[in-house]
Structures are given as C-alpha cells and as structure tokens.
C-alpha cells in the first residue's frame, strides 16, 4: 500500500510541474494553432537565466521567477513578432512551415546555450534541494511541493486573467474565432504576440521551479516539449484546467508505469497515452468535462 501511495504522491507532485510546462503550450496552441516545438528550449533558457542569477547574485530560484518570467515573455514576444507572425503571410507549398520554424528556433536556442555554457551538467545547490517531510510513511519532496503550489497559483491567476481582464477576454475571443475577433475590434496581431509571450513566461516559471530538483544542460528541452504536447492533447487545447488535469494524469501514469511495469518503459507511457488520445479522444479530456 505504501508503495502505491508513495508512487501516487510522486506522480501528483511531478504532475504539478508538468502542468505548468503544458499550460503555456496549451494556451499557444489553443489561441494560435501554433505547434511550438521549441517550448522545452524556452524553458531551458529560463533555467540558464536562473542559474546565472543564482551563481552571480546568489538569488534563490524562487525569486528568479520574478526576473525569468518577464525575460521569457519578451523573448516569446520577439520570436512571435519577427519569426512566426511573418509566416502567416507567406504563401508556400511547404506544409507545416510554422512547426518547422519552431524546430529551427529550438535548435538555435540550444546551440547558443551550449556555446555559452558548454554541454556540462549544471545544478543549483540550495539548502532545501533534497529535503523532504513525511506524512506517515510517505515522503514529500519539499521543492516539488512548492513547485506544485506555485503551479496551482499561477494557473488560478491565469484563469482569472483570461476570465476577467480585457486582454484575457480578447485572447479567448481570438482562440474561438480569429476573424470574428478582428471584426469585433480585437488587434489579433498584438494578441498573438502577447499570447506567445505569456505561454513562454509560464514555461519559464516551470523551469525556475524545476531547477532545484533536477539539473540543467543545453539539450534538456526536447523531452519536456514532448511532455507538454501529451498534456496539451490530453487536457484539450486552450483549457487551463485541462492542462492541470493533463499534467497530473501524465505524472501519475508515468509513476505507476515506472513502478509496476518497469523503469525502462517510463517514457513510453507518455507516448502511448499521447497516441491513444490523439486517435480515440480528439479534443482531450476537455471534451468529457465540457469546461
């Protein structure tokens, strides 16, 4: 029983971080239909920023959130404005050229990071990095719990933002029907740029929260991008609650898979779920709950 509970706890906690990674992508995909294969690399950039702040200014990663998030927002805005928006106007035979553009962006970001920081594995050592508290027999990793609550808080903030603010409503309108939104006076060009920035800053937060738990190297982005996809597809495009649920479901599925099927197959669980959802449940869990 302990094994099951501990596995569950581990899955839920990592699911929190996964959700945060996925929510940015879900937003971007929901609003703009853009598949961002550089999502993980954006997180990588945020993690390097956090690392530098930690090494030179001794700034705790949780405080770096306040710096990394705006930085990535700006980076996202830049990428969307100069590299992705122009694609909407180009007539080309090339199918999915926007996806491929993000592949190129991802590669460039990775290589620049490698050039500056080399391929070495880097990590931050904080006093709480591997501390854990116990409820009964079950161990709860402290940084992961903090990350989980941050993820929850950011999601609630996002939810409120999308629901209550003007910009948020414009974003939702653009997601629903771009042309209709333009007709209603929404500057969709600006909205897409803001959305990409927003999505980037969310994944930046995930990076800051992940750094104390894991480690950092230039190629870290790839696997996380894939996880973000699984979550986005699982939870439904553009659905904030869906991303939370999707993240936690993925975390739990991976944990259970690792414990009961075998650690070597852990990565496969995500992919199998991904394919199954794509085939049998288009629209994701959102369709089942109508949120």
């Amino acid at each position, binding site marked *: 029983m302990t094994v099951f509970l501990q596995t569950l706890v581990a899955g839920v906690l990592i699911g929190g971080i996964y959700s945060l990674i996925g929510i940015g992508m879900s937003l971007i995909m929901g609003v703009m239909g853009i598949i961002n294969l550089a999502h993980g690399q954006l997180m990588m950039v945020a993690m390097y920023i956090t690392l530098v702040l930690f090494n030179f200014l001794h700034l705790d990663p949780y405080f770096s959130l306040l710096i990394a998030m705006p930085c990535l927002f700006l980076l996202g805005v830049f990428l969307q404005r100069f590299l992705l928006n122009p694609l909407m106007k180009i007539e080309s035979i090339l199918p999915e050229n926007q996806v491929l553009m993000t592949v190129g962006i991802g590669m460039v970001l990775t290589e620049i990071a490698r050039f500056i920081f080399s*391929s070495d594995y880097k*990590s931050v050592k904080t006093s709480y*990095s591997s501390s854990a508290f116990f409820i009964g027999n079950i161990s709860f*990793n402290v940084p992961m719990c903090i990350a989980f609550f941050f993820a929850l808080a950011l999601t609630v903030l996002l939810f409120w933002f999308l629901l209550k603010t003007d910009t948020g409503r414009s974003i939702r309108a653009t997601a629903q029907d771009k042309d209709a939104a333009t007709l209603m006076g929404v500057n969709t060009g600006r909205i897409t740029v803001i959305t990409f920035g927003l999505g980037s800053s969310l994944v930046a937060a995930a990076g800051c929260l992940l750094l104390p738990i894991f480690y950092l190297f230039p190629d870290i982005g790839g696997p996380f991008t894939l996880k973000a996809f699984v979550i986005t597809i699982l939870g439904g495009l553009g659905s904030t609650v869906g991303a939370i649920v999707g993240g936690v479901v993925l975390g739990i599925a991976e944990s259970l898979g*690792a414990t009961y099927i075998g*650690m070597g197959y852990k990565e496969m669980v995500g992919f199998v779920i991904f394919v199954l959802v794509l085939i049998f449940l288009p629209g994701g869990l959102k369709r089942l709950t109508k949120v």
Partner: protein
Amino acid sequence: MKKRLMLTGLVLIFIFGLNLSPALAQDTIKVGIVLPLTGDQAKFGEIEKQSFDLALGEINAAGGVKGKKLEFIIEDDTGRPEVGRSVVEKLITKDKVIMLGGGYSSSVTYAVAGVCQQNQMPFLINTGSADNITEKGWDYIFRLNPPASKYSTSVEELLEQVIKPKTVVILHENSLFGTSSAKSFDEQCTKAGYKVVLKEGYEAGGIDFKPVLTRVKELNPDIVYMVSYVMDAALLMKQSKELKIAPKMFIGGGAGFTLPEFQQNAGVASEKILSATLWHQVLPFPGAMDYYKKFVAKYNKETEYHGAEAYAAAYVIADVLKRANSFKNEDIKKALSETNMMTVFGPVKFTTWDKMNNQNKASSYVVQWIDGKLEMVWPKDLAAKSFAYPVDWLKQWGY
C-alpha cells in the same frame, strides 16, 4: 552555358584540391585517438584527452619514439557509434595513422573495434568496457582496462568478507555499459549466494526515480548497487535520502560515482557511498601519485580512473612503438602482444583468459566518499583510510 561550365570547373578543382592537400608535420609518428569530445560524455573525453596530452608532452620531451616525435591525432566521436566508425576510417585512410587508441563509450568502442579489426589496424582500448569487445577473437584489438564484468570484483570481496548481505537490488542505466555491468554483477551475486530481489534498467536523464526507489525501499535490501552516469547517480542518492532508504550499503559501479561532480551535486547524500573503481592515486604503482599531482597542477581539477587509463595507455603506445620492428600493422600487433610493463594504472600485459583475448588483467578497488573526498578503502592492505561501516544513514542525513 559558360557560367555553368565555369562553376563545374571550380567545383572539380575544389575537390581535387582537398584531395591533394599535403599533410602537415611530415616527420612525426601518427597515432589516432578516438574520444567523445562533445556530447553528453564530453566530461570523460576531456579528462582523457588532457591525460593523453600530459603524457605526450612528457614522452616527446624524453626523446619521443626512435628519435622522432610522437603525435596523437585526437578525433571526436561525439558519443555516437556511427560517427566513431567514420572518424576511425578517416584516421586510417586519410591521416594514415599507424595505430589507434582511446575508446570511451562501450557502444562506440565496439563499433570502432569492428572497423579496426577489418582494416587490420591495431587498436589499444583504454576505457570501453563491455565484455563482448574482447570476446570476439579479434586479434588486432587490445584492451588495457578490465571488462565491465570485472569492475566489481573488489566490491564482491568486500561484500563477502565484511558485509555479507542476503539481498541485493541492482539499478542500471539502459546503455551497453550499464546493462552489461548489471548483468554480470547479477551473476556474481547469484554465485555468491545473495538474492537479487530486483534488477531494473532505466533511461538515463530521468527526473524522478521515486517510483522505482519506493519499490526498493519496500524490498528493504541489504545492498543497493547502481550503475549510472554522474547526474543520475546524484539524483538516485538524493532521492534515496528523501525516501529514507537505509540499506547496509549503497554501492556504485564506477563511472558517475567516482566523479567530483557526483559529490558536488549530491552533497550530503554522497557521503559514505562506496563505489567500484579501477584506480586511485594512493595505489603503489610508480608515478601514480605524481600523475595525480601533475594533472591537478596543470588543469586545476581532479582526475580519476579514466584519466589514469588514458595516461597509462599513452605510455604503453610509446613503449609498443619503440619495440616494434617496423610500423607495419603486423609488427605493431606483435609488439602489443609482447607488452609487459608497469604503468601508473598498474601492470600491463595482454593475455587470453576467460572468454577474452588480448585482455589485460587489471584489478579493481573500492573507494568511499569520506568527508567529501574520494578515499580508497579496499583492499585493506592498499587502503589509505579505513572503511566506514556500518553507516547510520538516517542520522547522517539529518533525520
């Protein structure tokens, strides 16, 4: 039409030009070294390259080989077997090296050895350890380091004489090195009468090992044996600490567990962890401590068994070339098979034993992280510090 012809002409001249470009530094003896200089194994490749460089400087300062300077052409295999193969072909056909050295990753070494054997190019492996490499009966392939299955011999002695466990858990990464090490340790445990209650492979680079570690905790084994590279090793220990897993001993199978980065990243979770190793600077081999000190002084960082393997290999290569009747493949092969010398890594002699040929019989040892430093603790007569056991893990971890 004219422009097209001109372009074609230029291309042809370019191709010819590349082909005819003369080799620089004609009068050196060229040996090719294949190492991962980039990619995720770059850290080890770097230590080995630096050790090769250090040794080369000394060898040439002492007169080189037969009066000529020795040259190491170090090529990057990027950690991928297919690149390793291409790189070795280039070394053989374009750079015209007379023998090959290096070989870090087991997969790459295996693929490269295949090429060398086919081309009858003598290859002195100093790190790639999967057993199958010297079990193929390839007569041009020689290995300085012991095969992966022998890494844990010293650990097994320690288990037998001191700890005497009943149950063992083995965790390993899903690479050639990890899988073959785990397999042979499993066999050894079964032979010694210990029960292997869990043996599990994992994909390197995972974030969360808690699922499998929870199972480990429940099985409550006496020994947890892990074969991992450095970052996974650090995470495994940190997360074991979080789960309060307290076996009689945690033991690493070499590789990541002996790197300084392991201690830096795992912190208190690395304290008192044992690992198998193939070398330590306090060993009574002539020049071992000197090599360590010289390396630290020159490169401002620690070295460990991989570096020692490379340094020793450089000296073996020089010795072989001095003894060879000529630089033809067969003569170098003959000189290699007649090798009988002492190096900082220990005695080097290539013989046929178990299922292997051209395999040096190097010993393994056990090290332990004590007060943040890697100390040699076994065999007892060579140990610098005494082996800390039993360990109150929970107390050490601050619970």
